[in-house]
């Protein structure tokens, strides 16, 4: 045979062998599920994914849109988009993007930690660390479900992870769960987390949830679920044993200089530097065009998504209240033409930024002042009136704000005082709407707030829960679209 004939035969033979390996290509620059969730270190990485979920900009934005903008505290500016305006005016529907992000954000967080809880048990690792990881995962699941149940009411309750197609098929089998069942799950998770988590962390781990965070959140959950009897001892334990205290200066809570302070029980960690870990607050909240004058040239100028209402400004009745100026700004100087612009804007979490949507301030989910006021609320409810302990707690908060102590209060006046105190203390901290609901005041307050002399407005109680997002009801036949006189 001629050499060229031989080489053809060799080529053909070569071609017939050894293709199998040639086709087995695994990703080099991406992780695979099959090689994850296997070791203690894998679980730690996965937990960071769980924390990352609650730090997502879309989720946290949706939280103040559905927790503050919807209330009488703030409104969106004139150049805002239709989704923003809808929440401001109770004209939103199931396709509102914030409604959808609230839902997606919470379930993303839940799904990520469900997988950890599914996989952690068989892993050989230090028992204390395993407890801590489980506690963190349970806390994060409870936190997200609490956000869901407050915002939407009945939601699907899923507590197993989805990492394969069979589990996906199963996920279509979840309908809307009853509210008490969801609260039961949240309480069980937080109770367990409280028993598993450490009380504190060394420096490099600061930011993880502690036992006190779990207990404070449990107290808040009980309170929102009107389980005042159960709330009281948990909150008392946090007050007595957590070692937390009020920062002397109210405004320090909201600046980058005092992250994870003595007053903080749990806060969402942000970090500027253009690494995707910055907060959106300064750019999202400040009035349009004001950003570069208020927080620096790096700002995108302000989106005007959180402008305090005149109503809120007037609520700071005491001119000595230190919280007023720490909460609301009233004007800024446009240095390009030296004009003073008079407009109300929120001051919390608005440290200087170097780049757009890259704020450095953490967002506080739970702080000691909240625990004090919640405890006072539980006492008032449980005793049908404020005892001395309750009054002293609210006065602690007021004293730090520089306003006079309250006295001579009955159940109702104390309750009213608490709602007001909470409004002044926690404006823009995603509390107001749920406070109004818990105090049973949302319909009345919002009807008054939105009505104008020519256009009366009555808030129907069906607006107290957001509609289930259209994206979900279109997908899952077991989840019907929210249908009532509001949606």
């Amino acid at each position, binding site marked *: 045979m001629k050499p060229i004939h031989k080489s*053809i035969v060799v080529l053909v033979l070569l*071609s017939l062998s050894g293709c199998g390996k*040639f*086709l087995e*290509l*695994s*990703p*080099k*620059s*991406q992780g695979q*599920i*099959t090689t*994850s969730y296997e070791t203690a270190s894998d679980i730690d990485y996965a937990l*960071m*994914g769980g924390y990352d979920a609650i*730090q*997502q*900009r*879309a*989720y946290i934005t949706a939280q103040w849109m559905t927790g503050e903008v919807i209330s009488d505290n703030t409104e969106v500016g004139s150049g805002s988009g*239709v989704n923003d305006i809808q929440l401001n005016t109770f004209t939103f529907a*199931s396709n509102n*993007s914030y409604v*959808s992000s609230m*839902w*997606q*954000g919470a379930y*993303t967080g839940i*799904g*990520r930690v469900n*997988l950890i809880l599914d996989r952690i048990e068989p892993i050989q690792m230090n028992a204390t660390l395993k407890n801590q990881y489980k506690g963190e995962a349970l806390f994060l699941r409870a936190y997200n479900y609490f956000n869901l149940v407050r915002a939407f009411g009945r939601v699907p309750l899923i507590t197993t992870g989805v*990492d394969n*197609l069979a589990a*996906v098929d199963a*996920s279509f089998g979840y309908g809307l769960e009853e509210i008490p069942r969801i609260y039961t799950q949240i309480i069980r998770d937080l109770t367990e987390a409280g028993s598993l988590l450490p009380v504190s962390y060394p420096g*490099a781990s*600061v*930011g993880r949830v502690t036992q006190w965070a779990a207990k404070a959140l449990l107290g808040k959950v009980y309170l929102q679920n009107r389980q005042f009897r159960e709330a009281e001892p948990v909150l008392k334990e946090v007050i007595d044993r957590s070692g937390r205290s009020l920062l002397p200066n109210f405004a320090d809570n909201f600046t980058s200089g005092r992250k994870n302070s003595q007053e903080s029980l749990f806060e969402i960690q942000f*970090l500027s530097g253009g*690494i995707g870990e910055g907060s959106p607050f300064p750019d999202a909240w400040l*009035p*349009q*065009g*004001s950003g570069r004058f208020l927080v620096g*040239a*790096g*700002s*995108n*100028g302000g*989106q*005007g998504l959180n402008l305090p209402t005149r109503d809120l400004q007037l609520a700071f009745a005491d001119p000595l209240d230190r919280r007023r100026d720490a909460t609301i700004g009233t004007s800024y100087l*446009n240095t*390009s033409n030296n004009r003073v612009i008079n407009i109300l804007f929120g001051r919390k979490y608005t440290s200087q930024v*170097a*780049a757009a949507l*890259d704020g450095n301030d953490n967002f506080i989910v739970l702080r000691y002042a909240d625990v004090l006021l919640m405890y006072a609320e539980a006492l008032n409810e449980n005793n049908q009136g404020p005892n001395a302990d309750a009054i002293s707690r609210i006065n602690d908060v007021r004293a730090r704000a520089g306003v006079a102590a309250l006295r001579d209060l009955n159940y109702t006046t104390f309750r009213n005082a608490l709602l007001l105190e909470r409004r002044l203390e926690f404006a823009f901290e995603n509390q107001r709407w749920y406070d109004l609901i818990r105090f049973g005041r949302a319909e009345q307050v919002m009807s008054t707030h939105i009505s104008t*002399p020519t256009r009366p407005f009555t808030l129907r109680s069906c607006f107290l829960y957001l509609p289930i997002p*259209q994206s979900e009801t*279109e997908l899952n036949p077991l989840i019907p*679209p929210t249908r009532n006189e509001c949606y």
Partner: protein
Amino acid sequence: MTKKYHSSQYWLWLMRFSLTQFVLTLTLLGVTYARDLRAQDYLNRRISLNIDNKEIKKVLLTLERTADVRFMYSSNVLPKDQKISIQATDEPLGQVLERVFRPMKIKFELMGKRILLSPATTSTLVDLVPHQVANQAALPARTIQGRVVSETGEGLPGVSVIVRATSTGTVTDAKGDYSMEIPNDAKVLIFSFVGYLKQEVAVGNQTTLNVQLQPNTQNLDEVVVVGYGTQNRRDITGSIGSIKTSQITDQRVTSLDQALQGQIAGVQVQQTSGAPGGNVSIKIRGVTSIGTGSDPLFVVDGFPINNDKSLAGLPGSNPPNPLSAINPADILSIEVLKDASSTAIYGSRGANGVILITTKQGDSGKSRITLDVSAGMQSPSRTVQLMDAGDYAQAFIESRNNRFLVRGGDPATPNALRGANRVPQYFFNTDSLRAHSTNWVNEVIRPTAIQNYQLSATGGSANLKYAISGSYLDQGGIIIGTGFKRYTLRSNIEAKLNTRTKLGVNFAPSYSFNKIGKVEGHFAQGSSLTQAFVSTPILPVYDADGSYSSQRSYVSPEGLTAVFNAQDNAVAMAQEAKYEQGIARLLSNMYVEYEISPSLKFKTTLGVDASFMRLYNFRGASLITNGALQGGASTSQSLNWLNENTLSYAGKWGQHALQGVAGFSAQKNSFEFNDVSGINLNPEVPYVRSGRIANGNQTIEEWALVSYLGRLNYQFKDRYLATVSFRSDGSSRFGNNNRYGYFPSAALGWRMADEPFMKKALSFVSDWKWRVSYGLTGNNNIGNYSSLGLTLPANYVLGGSQVSGYAVSTLDNPDLTWEKNSQFDVGADISLFNNRLNLTADYYYNKTIDLLWRVNLPALTGISVPGGSGYAQASTLKNIGQVENKGFEFAINSQNLVGAFNWTTNFNISFNRNKVLSLGVVGERFFTGSNIVNSFQVTEVGRPTAQFYTLVTDGIFQNQEEVNAYQRNGVLIQPTARPGDFRYRDVNDDGRISPDDRDYTGNPHPQFSFGFSNNFSYKNFSLNVLLSGVYGNKVMNVGSRWVSNLNGNLNGFKEAFEGRWISPDQPGTGYPSVSTTRANEIHSFNIEDGSFVRVRNVTLAYALPKTVFSAIGLQGGRVYFSGQNLLTLTRYSGLDPEVNENGSNPLSLGVDAFGYPSPRVLTLGLTANF
């Protein structure tokens, strides 16, 4: 060719064109040295055969098959019923022919691949004086001379010129010149040449007669490139459309896929972005896929190239077109394989059709150097009328009035006391504002230049052929800040190592540089054209100090802020936001072809497609949307290699002929993308290094494909045809359980015209072929690793530092497999009247099963992918569902006039109907939309894909009574509506308007698309006019939710402003009132008719007369004037009905988000041959 027959340069020929029974006797002149070489080339081809006592005609047929040549002869040349025997073993063809013909006194000569046979009488061997007429009895009376040129203006040697009704004639010499004496009463000269249409020209009193011949485009002997080989058009059983080099070069397009526009039935080519080098979407026979790409496979000189648009590395949905790296002038032909019979041999990549691109090869013969220089102007092809500053101020005032009243304000309140609804005082002086109005669209769109230079050389000797070219294209963009430059080189060389072995190298490096900018999309994402549409005409482009004016930080004289939308200056967006991409690409392959025996060949090919991309972006100081100065750089490299080994066979026994090809191929692609970005850059040094590095990324991906393939073509009696083909593909992309796929096809053909009954009964039928085919193809465009469960980085912050984390992003699906497309095709190719009228008709039915689709998952799976401002719904790729496409295609090619005045018409039209048959058990409805606003298109069972699905507007409420009257069971359906608002149809009749009231509001698929081209030539002039269009499709004009639904802050269409509802007494022409709350809604009002007819190309060329070009030392020359996109007839209100925001995404059809419009291009050019 033997020396003996070459002893003379001047020959007498006898030619006969069998179809017409027309016999010519003529004098042959001017066989050049070049032709000798070419003849030598063919005649040196070695053949082996053994024929015993067969009829001479059958012997010739056998020789045709084995030696790949074709004999042409007059019926009286061959001795009747003579039987001969030949034995040859590995002997040159010329030698064999001489043994056969010499005893019969038949002379043979080669012309291209054809061998002309003529009687070698003594007189023909007499040396004749050039240009003299031989063998004529008629009285010579006068001399006529002239030149015969091809369609490109080059002299055609060897053209026969005879006087009608006589046997007086001659042939043209090497330069295409002829001269002869003709009888005084000669009326008509007939010019004919193989491969060209015969032309009859009246002589009159002329003494000089120049003729331009037109190619016979439907020549049955035309060779068509098919997968892994070539075939004669007459033998093809599949549905294949071809376009030739002349159809490409005449159009002056800058990218080869644009050359396909309107040319081939069933191929819809859509310029989804008119940016230079911008995206082109090609759909062959409809949308065969829903979730994966619907672009066809591109194969350049046998190499299936990367056309993966994501490789470009640029975020965005209309990425630059990777095919724009190929110089269209280098292309010899483009074949579009449409049915399964032709595409199944490309297996898992064939489902969307295959486009084969063949580049120009050299020719043995004289070197030919061609220079082409052209330059032109580009300008917007359509304009729109926007509101001027006066209109804007008026709209602003109305919107603020409305809002003040809606919020309970007292109409008597003076402006100054209206708080947030206060209007800057000077807005009330609309007339003075109008005098200083800025038209922002005109500020970002401008006329710009285009220039193109090409130099090529082709030629070769007996053993070496070359085609070498270089080109430079500089195309400005009509939107400021954009533009495209391309440098290409190509060197195609083929060498004959010995009589059996050929070696070839195609080497084609290119570099393109594209200033892309950010044009379409949401203004809030920095899209310059969109921002230009909505920018306030009150502000000038530049402030008095020369800096960009700013809407964002504008403060009115009374201190009002946030008057305008808080965006950057549109001109700054276009000029200062830089996206610049450079791509160096090397397409190269090398092959060796070895002739094992005359009927069996082995070919091995090694190819490489390597591309290197760099992308630079920088947002300058004048853009504050994203705060600090930011910039970034990305690079990617992609290396794709292919080895192919094929054995091909061609044989014939008696009336049976068989051709086959079998092969093995392996292909692998490695891709790496690196990306770094920085912030706080120093504007003087606008690169990452001058700032702080903020982000970096590295992505590595690979895929591999291993295939076996084969095809058999069988012909019986030359008219019963059968083809079967097969391919097996193993792909790294699919799940472990489904790694290999098998793709068979079969086809039958019947050349009915060759049946004796047809020849007798219907002599006007030149050819009539029926074809029917069925086969299975696949679509593997699902990205790499899609069958694997993957994690994505999900990082957090602890202790003040970033810590790494991950989360699940996709799930394992070991069953994942390719989409399978089964396709049935029946068609006919009919040529009538001596091939002057050619018709092709096809019906096809094409069903895709195992549709790949990212199935949306309930959010509670937790797999959703967070983005900046929202979440991408959790999804997983699955094989679900079926979709069908069926339709008719018709193509007509007609040589209307042949003669001094030539007129050729090509018309094609295709009707495709798309329908989703099933979508698996889940969902049964997929929503898609635009990047600006989502979920306005639905794909569901029983309907075509991507139907518009929105609220339905039923006009405008003219007054409060109409609002009050719009009720159901006593309850107002739109209780918050005001006069001037849209009335929405309560589709589900539940008494209120909700998302449940969405309905089907339009079909983005055209009812038909067509192309219509006419070529005229007269003397030295030629004119080509190409029209194409679509009919019956709807387009979502996403931007019209701003520019038609006016909100007072954003500027808009003048028509919308002038036609707005103002009051019950001034109801306008159907546009709503100006309202601050309505601007972002999107519904049926924003859906428009997208039908259009476009004059794509008009080229007028003039072949320089001999006196001109020989005076300047040229062989030939041509000047031309070309206009692209001269006119678009459409009712669409936007700039271009053809653009599509999501490029080639099969589920996002007909979405215009202020896409980059295609420019009108006027070019003047010169082609010179040396």
